[in-house]
């Protein structure tokens, strides 16, 4: 009984302190006059209205083009003839099925999925050990690494492709012939995302303290990395992978310049012959990617991790 009363007292105190903090942050010095609570706050706090309006505008910015895309892709009624009575006429998924059964699209999807897998694997293989060792052994190098991993974005894709292509064509001509010659480009191009996600993950779990704690318990370097650090990097690894996947599934410049048939280049080709089907495909790829990201976030939440933990 006495414990309960203590708890309730504490909660009252904390509520008050939150309110007073809020007042302080708004530059208000006087507390709200007693008895005027509700009206007072409505007067001095326009923020919720602005926040709501802002969210609606942002939502419209994303939703309207997608609805328009969906209508164009799945409803076979030209815009000029669309009247309220015809709103539910002519809807069909046939364009999508045709696109999905196109052999070019199927082959390109397979290529892209493999590219995603290899790019993620290469990126993690390079950056995970690098990020971990830097954090636990020489944290002073973090800013250097952070700057170095940004370099791929300083160089435009065209320069990267032309430069690299010229070198490889002379040295190992067979390499550029393969679809998988895109893997190193993608790994490089996704490096800024990947490194940041991994680094943020290491910071979020205080990897250095975990490492030190495990060392005092007698654990070897390998044991610590395998049993303590990496198992706690789930969120960061998932975030890094999801970002790499999204990037690879949407990358056009490298693939087009190197004349590769990946999902994005093939979708552009397909859309020239069948605009509706092409758009339906684009919409589906977008929704699937979003759903996959959502699933990753949900499974992380269930394990008590958040995407914030991974720094994105």
């Amino acid at each position: 009984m006495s414990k309960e009363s203590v708890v309730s007292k504490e909660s009252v105190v904390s509520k008050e302190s939150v309110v007073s903090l809020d007042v302080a942050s708004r530059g208000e010095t006087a507390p709200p006059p007693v008895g005027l609570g509700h009206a007072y706050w409505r007067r001095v706090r326009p923020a919720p209205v602005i926040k709501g309006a802002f969210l609606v505008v942002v939502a419209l910015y994303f939703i309207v083009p997608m609805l328009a895309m969906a209508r164009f892709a799945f409803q076979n009624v030209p815009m000029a003839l669309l009247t309220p009575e015809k709103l539910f006429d002519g809807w069909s998924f046939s364009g999508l099925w045709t696109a999905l059964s196109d052999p070019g699209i199927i082959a390109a999807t397979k290529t892209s999925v493999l590219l995603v897998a290899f790019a993620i694997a290469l990126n993690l293989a390079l950056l995970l050990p690098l990020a971990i060792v830097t954090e636990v052994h020489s944290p002073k190098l973090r800013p250097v690494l952070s700057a170095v991993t940004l370099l791929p974005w300083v160089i435009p894709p065209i320069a990267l492709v032309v430069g690299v292509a010229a070198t490889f064509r002379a040295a190992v001509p067979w390499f550029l012939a393969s679809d998988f010659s895109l893997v190193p480009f993608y790994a490089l191009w996704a490096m800024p995302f990947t490194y940041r996600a991994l680094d943020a993950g290491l910071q979020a779990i205080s990897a250095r303290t975990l490492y030190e704690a495990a060392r005092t318990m007698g654990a070897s370097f390998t044991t610590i990395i395998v049993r303590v650090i990496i198992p706690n990097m789930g969120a960061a690894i998932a975030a890094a992978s999801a970002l790499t996947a999204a990037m690879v599934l949407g990358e056009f410049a490298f693939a087009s310049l190197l004349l590769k048939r990946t999902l994005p280049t093939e979708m552009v080709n397909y859309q020239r012959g069948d605009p509706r089907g092409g758009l339906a495909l684009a919409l589906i790829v977008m929704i699937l990617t979003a759903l996959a990201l959502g699933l990753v976030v949900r499974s992380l939440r269930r394990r008590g991790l958040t995407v914030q933990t991974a720094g994105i």
Partner: protein
Amino acid sequence: MATVEMVSIRKAFGSSVALEDFTVRIRSGELVCLLGPSGCGKTTALRILAGLEKADGGRVAVEGLDISDEPPERRRFGMVFQDYSLFPNMTARQNIEFGLKVQKKDAASRRSIVDRMIDVTRLQAHADKYPHQMSGGQRQRVALARAIATAPRVLLLDEPLSALDAQVRETLRDEIRRLQLEIGVTTVFVTHDQHEALAIADRVGVMSNGRLEQLAPPRELYERPANSFVAGFIGTVNQLPARALQSDRWQVLNRTVVGNEAGTAGVEGTVAVRPEHIALDRSDIGPWTIESTSFLGPMTRLVVAQPGHQSLLVDLASSDAVAFPVGSRVQVRLRDDVGQVTVLTLAPLASRMSS
């Protein structure tokens, strides 16, 4: 159980010196608190002891054996960090078990040790929870159980209570002491909270600017501070003018007392006197006046002022303090049972603390 020695340790980070000629000898089974303001080098000392930092000079020895070059994983110490540092992917039980698995103990003995640790730290209801499902106090109890599960030779605690709120802090503080006495492990506890240090330590080492100023039992530290820094850092002191007499005798408020060091006879100096060591007598001619009083429960603190003098803080039993309302005129004197004072002649207190 083990004796621990850190001898003439020196450590600098770039141009800033964290530890200078730092020497401490800890007896077997003893709990020593390293206490000091932030930046005084206490955490660096602990990390050097743990092997997580390497000293630039000096040596660390356990049971007389030099371990200065041993990596932390070979020292067989247990350590608790300020921010819990529990492994998030493991339950409380698995966290406690980790060190035992590393030691390659068999499943049955691991189980019995973990069960005992869960019992002594009263974590029965939380054994299968993950760190994120536990409160700060519970997590720190797991961290403590994890640190002592491997039967370490020395237990190191780096501000283990700083992240907790006041009530939990006090409970856990007492629990740490109870456990430490129960298993008898030599313990070094780093803190910036003097109440914490005075409450649980066998001996407290007060540090400033990378040096150990004094290492003594709490009572001695309070009653016979070795220098002005310790006097000012532990508890509250008044600075009173005093005149040096023969050898180590000083005259303070018309009484002759022993100082912790000798002055040149006849020369004026300053001594530190605790608020509870001053007595007041009602006197209509003053010269002191009660300026304000604050009720602190069993004690009442009075601010006593005289024009042209520094105000004095005086602590009286609250029942006695009612005789001295604000505005009443009094005379001050040293209490009869005060035999020793700390001389502050080395340098003014304020400038030493900020240097």
